[in-house]
């Protein structure tokens, strides 16, 4: 093995945004220290200042085009929460909550599937090895796992032929120069072929899945939202018509949410359940079976936070959430700690190792309502080889809950669900552990994180049908209200208000903190999942979730091919544009850099 | 001190008020007022467009009372009002304007143009830009007592003759009478039968009246020329006489400007309301008609039309009485198209009839064509009016055009057919 060295992975690919990992290894190749850095900023929080809060969703939505819904939703909720805090009887129509749930859940399932097959799978699946597979054996394997219809030998032979042609042409494109043949790849050729086939299937599947967003939001990526409900009126009319009850409009005098559109939604829900049940979950279990050793590395923090989401009644009724709100500390699933959103010391962001400056000193932590966003870039002048990790080294801030670093995301949610007593979650976790024949500790790992993503996809895909049925029942009963226009006009708002928009995004707990003065945004802070997970060390030198996970039991086979780093980092599903969204327009910083 | 440009501008600065400012701000140069002005319609000369006649006033307003105008003046973009301009405008403001007020009626933005002409004449007069004829009429009125230079003995003579003709007493300087009867020189000289008619009617109605030897003249050339100071002098005579004689009413004669002067301008000239009521003779007659006092012994048979004098009807507000009265006496009254407040001027009001230059007379004659057409299209040989000035102007025009149309005074016509 090699000598101790600094392994740099930049760009970390198959993620959203620009992430850089620097890992210090010892002589054995074991990672002793890991540093996670976001290397791109746009300054969206600053851009938002002085704008109409109703417009904010469109800006924040562009924080990320992958989890394309979550920032828009969080922003909408922030404005609504501000209104609700100021005007307690301010409410969102039930249909709007249901449609939002459907859109959020669709985002989860879509995002998780795409993450697994297109961003994460190539860490576990060797495409080149698939060429050696026997299509017949692959078919047998596939049929043994699930009832997924595309499992004939001919189907796999076709896929193999396609890949073969592709490889033989010599233009490998996106598959070129990868770690093919790395000894850490452990799947047999047949499993690889099956995964490659599902890689392609999932691409086709996801195109259909997003149609749910297109129906309600007009398009995907970046569907539309509106403060006070959803901007997708239901095309029914109650006057005239035959018999009782509402009638759907068709033709020109209609919106997308007509009988055809709702049928599409129903189809998408069915398709999502089918794919999760027949492909995603079985594939995860099958692949995980070959990588059980990853059940003992990559955990890191052991602290999990969930803001909760998917209300059956109202977002302000936290008891009606499908995903509960709370914190699990130190793997202790017996206790769920409550979260106080408004206490100054509860949620704070630190910039000790981030390129920002706080007016009260960089060692302090600030509650997001009082958050500051003044930049102090002090990194090396590009082009650079290494970041100075002892000082500041990232555009990402370090959020903490009661001073502790937290992991957010699917694993955190499943842990909080389990700890809160969600029966389906418990059952799924138990059966997964049993199928894989691994101890409960294996949950707290890179493997557990990737599996949790699949488990919650199942929980959500199942829940979607219920929300859809309720929506249809409401429509049938004549309730087609989807938007509350009562406080639409900012001139009807109180002069000062503030609110927080929470959302459990696919990558974890997301919070947008909004302060409004005279109908315009005076402060906007987005504390996003990847900030929690990918943030650098804080004032107390506590590492962030990525860093802690990488420092947990990783030995690199070959520092030149740091596949192990990718596996653990990808298990978090990094979304860097989300994490890095602030900067300062101050021109003087230019000079500072030159001085450095 | 004599008339100067500065004095004229000074006078204009005094009279410009909010309505004038509003009117000038509203004018859109649509030119519709031209269609309402007989001097334009009969000549086709665009200079006779009423609003154009006000250009000096407009310039003074703009340059003195608007910031933009002042700035324009400062940087030399505004043409100042000078003597040459006023000289050129004299014809437009006097010869070709009878202050008939028809233009004020048609202006789509509501500009009261004649209101402004009256004010502009203050400046024209003060700066010495007035026609000789009006000026001498004014002089005669102020110095002698009437525009024609008539003195009391001559009047007394006429009154005596009327007493003889009617056999009725015409009281002079009789205090406490119901009515102080005012006359106009023209009536006294040209239409003495008016006085006879009045005497008969008062007698019939059982009302008392008197004539004042100090204030028999009703016309007021000061208003026509546009000098309020002189107009005040003239009207004050009447006011003093009426208040001295403690009459309840002052009876304005048929003459239009006289009525305008005493009824509408009078109180404003002396700066206080009168202690008596001013009544136009037709108003009185109409009231008597309504009371049934005015009974006719016979009627006038020939078809006839009515000429409504501007200052009494359109500008004076005596709207309905003339037609009611003519219907009382005439069998074949033919209403013309432009009647009552829409009537066309005779062409000699506002002092114009006093201008005796060749050009002014030719212009008047030309302007009369509108009346001529009215008479011809009605196909009548008789026209009735109730303003001495109109009668003179119309008869001159009849002569000019060699028309043999008969022109009658309304009051005399009534008196002639009055039940004995």
């Amino acid at each position, binding site marked *: 093995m090699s000598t101790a060295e600094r392994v740099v992975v930049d760009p970390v690919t198959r993620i959203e945004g620009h992430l850089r990992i620097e890992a210090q290894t010892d002589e054995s190749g074991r990672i002793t220290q890991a540093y996670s850095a976001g290397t791109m900023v746009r300054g969206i929080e600053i851009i938002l200042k002085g704008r109409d809060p109703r417009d904010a969703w469109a800006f924040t939505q562009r924080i990320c085009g992958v989890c394309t819904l979550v920032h828009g939703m969080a922003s909408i909720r922030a404005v609504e929460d501000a209104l609700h805090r100021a005007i307690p009887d301010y409410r969102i129509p039930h249909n709007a909550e249901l449609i939002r749930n459907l859109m959020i859940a669709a985002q989860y399932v879509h995002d998780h599937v795409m993450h697994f097959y297109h961003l994460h799978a190539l860490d576990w699946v060797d495409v080149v090895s698939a060429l050696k597979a026997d299509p017949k054996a692959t078919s047998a394997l596939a049929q043994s796992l699930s009832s997924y219809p595309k499992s004939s030998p001919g189907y796999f032979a076709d896929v193999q032929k396609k890949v073969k042609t592709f490889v033989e042409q010599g233009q490998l494109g996106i598959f070129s120069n990868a770690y093919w043949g790395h000894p850490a790849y452990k799947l047999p050729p047949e499993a690889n072929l099956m995964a490659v086939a599902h890689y392609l299937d999932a691409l086709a599947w996801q195109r259909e899945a997003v149609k749910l967003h297109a129906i309600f939001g007009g398009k995907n990526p970046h569907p539309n939202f509106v403060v006070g409900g959803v901007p997708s009126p239901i095309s029914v009319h109650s006057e005239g018509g035959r018999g009782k009850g509402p009638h759907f409009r068709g033709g020109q005098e209609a919106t997308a949410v007509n009988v055809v559109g709702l049928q599409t939604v129903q189809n998408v829900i069915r398709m999502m359940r089918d794919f999760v049940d027949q492909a995603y979950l079985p594939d995860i279990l099958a692949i995980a079976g070959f990588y059980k050793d990853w059940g003992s590395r990559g955990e890191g923090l052991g602290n999990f936070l969930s803001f909760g989401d998917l209300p059956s009644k109202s977002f302000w009724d936290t008891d009606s959430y499908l995903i509960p709100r709370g914190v699990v500390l130190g793997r202790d699933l017996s206790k769920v700690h409550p979260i106080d959103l408004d206490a100054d010391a509860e949620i704070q962001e630190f910039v000790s190792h981030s390129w920002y400056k706080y007016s009260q000193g960089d060692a302090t932590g600030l509650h997001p309502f009082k958050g500051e966003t003044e930049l102090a870039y002090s990194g090396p002048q590009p082009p650079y080889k290494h970041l100075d990790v002892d000082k500041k080294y990232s555009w990402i801030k370090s959020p903490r809950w009661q001073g502790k670093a937290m992991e957010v995301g699917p694993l955190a949610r499943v842990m909080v669900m389990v700890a809160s007593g969600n029966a389906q979650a418990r059952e799924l976790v138990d059966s997964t552990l049993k199928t894989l024949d691994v101890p409960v500790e294996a949950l707290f790992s890179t493997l557990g994180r990737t599996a949790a993503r699949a488990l919650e996809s199942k929980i959500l895909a199942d829940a979607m049908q219920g929300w859809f049925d309720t929506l249809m029942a409401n429509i049938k009963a004549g309730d087609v209200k989807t938007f509350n226009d009562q406080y639409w006009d900012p001139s009807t708002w109180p002069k000062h208000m503030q609110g927080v928009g929470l959302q459990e995004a696919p990558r974890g707990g997301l919070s947008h903190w909004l302060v409004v003065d005279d109908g315009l945004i005076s402060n906007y802070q987005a504390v996003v999942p990847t900030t929690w997970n990918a943030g650098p060390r804080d004032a107390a030198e506590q590492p962030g979730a990525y860093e802690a996970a990488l420092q947990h039991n990783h030995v690199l086979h070959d520092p030149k091919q740091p596949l192990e780093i990718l596996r653990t980092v990808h298990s978090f599903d990094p979304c860097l544009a989300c994490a890095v969204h602030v900067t300062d327009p101050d021109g003087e910083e230019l000079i500072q850099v030159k001085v450095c | 001190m004599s008339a100067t440009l500065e004095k004229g501008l000074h006078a204009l600065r005094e009279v410009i008020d909010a309505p004038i*400012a*509003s009117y000038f*701000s509203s004018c859109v140069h649509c030119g519709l007022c031209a269609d309402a002005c007989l001097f334009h319609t009969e000549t086709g000369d*665009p200079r006779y467009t009423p609003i154009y006649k006000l250009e000096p006033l407009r310039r003074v307003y703009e340059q003195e009372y608007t910031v*933009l105008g002042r700035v324009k003046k400062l940087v030399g973009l505004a043409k100042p009002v000078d003597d040459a301009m006023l000289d050129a405008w004299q014809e437009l403001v006097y010869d070709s304007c009878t202050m008939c007020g028809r233009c004020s009626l048609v202006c789509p933005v*509501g500009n009261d143009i004649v209101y402004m002409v009256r004010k502009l004449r203050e400046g024209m007069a003060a700066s010495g830009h007035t026609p000789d004829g009006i000026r001498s009429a004014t002089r005669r009125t102020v110095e002698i007592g009437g525009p024609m230079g008539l003195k009391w003995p001559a009047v007394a003579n006429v009154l005596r003759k009327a007493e003889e003709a009617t056999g009725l007493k015409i009281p002079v300087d009789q205090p406490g009478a119901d009515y102080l009867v005012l006359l106009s020189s023209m009536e006294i000289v040209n239409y003495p039968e008016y006085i006879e008619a009045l005497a008969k009617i008062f007698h019939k109605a059982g009302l008392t009246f008197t004539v004042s030897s100090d204030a028999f003249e009703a016309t007021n050339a000061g208003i026509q020329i546009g000098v309020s100071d002189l107009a005040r002098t003239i009207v004050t005579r009447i006011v003093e006489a009426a208040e001295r004689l403690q009459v309840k009413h002052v009876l304005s004669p048929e003459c239009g400007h006289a009525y305008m002067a005493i009824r509408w301008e009078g*109180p404003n000239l002396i700066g206080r309301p009168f202690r008596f009521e001013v009544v136009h003779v037709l108003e009185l007659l109409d009231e008597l008609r309504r009371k049934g006092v005015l009974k006719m012994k016979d009627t006038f048979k020939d078809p006839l039309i009515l000429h409504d004098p501007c200052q009494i009807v359109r500008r004076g507000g005596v709207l309905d009485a003339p037609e009611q009265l003519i219907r009382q006496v005439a069998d074949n009254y033919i209403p013309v198209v432009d009647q009552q407040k829409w009537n066309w001027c005779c062409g000699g009001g506002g002092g114009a009839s006093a201008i005796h230059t060749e050009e002014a007379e030719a212009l008047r004659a030309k302007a009369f064509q509108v009346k001529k057409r009215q008479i011809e299209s009605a196909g009548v040989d008789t026209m009735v009016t109730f303003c001495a000035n109109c009668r003179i102007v119309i008869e001159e025009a009849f002569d000019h055009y060699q028309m043999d149309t008969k022109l009658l005074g309304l009051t005399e016509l009534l008196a002639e057919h009055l039940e004995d």
Partner: protein
Amino acid sequence: MDDLQLLTWARGPGLDLALGIFVLGVVWRLIEVYALGRKRDLAPARHRTGASGLHTVLRRSMPPPGMLKTSPVSYIGGFVFHIGLAIIVLLFAPHILLIKSLTGLSWPGLPSQFIDMVAVLTMIAMLVILVDRINKPVKRFLSTFGDWFAWVVTFLPVLTGWMAVQHLLLPYTLMLALHILSVELLLVVLPFTKLFHAITLFGSRWYSGKINAHKGVPV
């Protein structure tokens, strides 16, 4: 600056500026005009003048008897163009929204094809009026630079608005920006040109009505 930026400027700072100058100018000019005051008429009124000022404000919108025949272009053209302008300004849905955002008041609009037709009629009427001004001796004689200028600044918003809707000559965005800018030009110059009649007209008619009603003449 590209066309959308120009449009945004026109809708934003440009509009603010233009409306500011307009409001400033109107308030200033109104005070300038009406603070000159007038003397009370001491002659006793023939009868109470009541709402005569208001009557005149309304009555003067109709042509006097006979005048329609003598000046058909002025009246019919004027009617078509003024009513057309009013319809376009007050009953075209996008304009109603502007009015709503300025005043909070709104009402239903008319179909855009109708507005379109009205715009064409309005422009034809304005062109006829322009030709009339050139041809008719009185109008030509009275016309000053201000009259031609006022015609142009009034015509431009209608023309640009119509062309924007019809997608003529320039891209819609740019044409819309020009339309809004032309309206802003109109707003800016209105208080300082004869276009101010749009406001003083009411005062002028009211004065006429009052002054004449005092004598008993409805005008």
